């Protein structure tokens, strides 16, 4: 999607939400650790996107641009909460849709998946801010060039960091399992 100058901010914002709202939640879960912070960060990111939309230059994909805005906002808000203790994410923080499975078997698999996702986000939150950002974009299938362009680092730097991140993330997941 392109932000066309003839399209109002409201319309562009609606499109951001319809197409890429999941990006916002992924950043929220990776940068904040309790439901109150989730809500606060989610709203801050929405506001930041609203305010930044008029200056979106269309030289990158909307999803990459939304990641940039969300990361900057999350890093800004996490500065305020830097000293706060890590709190486990409550089960219902992942949205009602994950809790709405209507058969026992499906419920079990959903719960299992939810536990795994929770562990993954918990591990991601233990990485440094820049590594969290790289991890999220890489897991969502963005290329090295896009990741580097969004963050302001070279492609080779992205590659080198990803090698370290994969190892670190695997270690963290193993530690958290124990």
């Amino acid at each position, binding site marked *: 999607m392109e932000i066309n100058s003839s399209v109002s901010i409201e319309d562009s914002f609606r499109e951001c939400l319809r197409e890429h709202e*999941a990006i916002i*939640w992924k950043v929220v879960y990776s940068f904040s650790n309790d439901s109150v912070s989730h809500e606060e960060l989610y*709203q801050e990111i929405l506001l930041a996107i609203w305010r*930044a939309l*008029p200056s979106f230059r269309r030289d990158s994909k909307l999803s990459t641009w939304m990641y940039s805005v969300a*990361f900057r906002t999350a890093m800004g808000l996490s*500065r305020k909460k830097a000293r706060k203790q890590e709190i486990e994410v409550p089960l219902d923080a992942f949205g009602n849709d994950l809790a709405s499975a209507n058969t026992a078997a499906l419920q079990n698999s959903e719960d299992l998946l939810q536990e795994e996702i929770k562990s993954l986000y918990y591990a991601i939150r233990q990485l440094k801010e820049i590594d969290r950002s790289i991890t999220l974009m890489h897991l969502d299938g963005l290329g090295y060039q896009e990741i580097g362009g*969004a*963050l302001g680092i070279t492609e080779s730097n992205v590659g080198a960091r990803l090698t370290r991140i994969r190892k670190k993330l695997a270690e963290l997941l193993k530690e958290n399992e124990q």
Partner: protein
Amino acid sequence: MNWDSIKTIWNEQKEINKDREDIEVLVNNIKSVNDGFRRSLFWRDVREVGTAFLLVAIFVYLGSSEPFLQKIGAWFNAACCFGVGLFFLWSRIHARRKPRQFPSTVKGALEADLWDLRFQERLLRTVNWWYLLPLGIGLTVWLVTSTVGSSGRFGWLFLIPALLGIAALYYWIYRLNQKAVETDIQPKQNSIISILHQWDE
């Protein structure tokens, strides 16, 4: 757990709130929060610039109606308030004219945040020179000239506590600004610097 397993878990997570039906409510809420924020900024500007120019009007009036000696203090004060008001007005117009561009990279955005914080720190650190001192000198000159010119020797009984009160008020404002630097701006700066260091690792 290897990377492929991590990717599988990631891809299997449901897209949260996809196809939500309350988008219009959300858009209206965000629009209203943003409008509220803009309104509060506007009225803050009106208060600051308005107060400065109201003081200009008061001191111009006093300067035109008082005897020569008091005129000096009143006109000096009017000029100081005018300068401060003009500075407020210029900075607000400048900020509105220059559209806020979102830097193209997260690193650029953090550097821009750091620049803004350093600018704020400089302003607050030097509040003595561009705000307190001009107004303080103007007010002192006006008080001294008014008292000496009109109240005779009993005027000192009023002047000394008034000057001490002004000094205490200005010191309190100065300390408030320095505290804001120490408790708010500097920790934010340090945090951005430490995040930016991650780019060099």
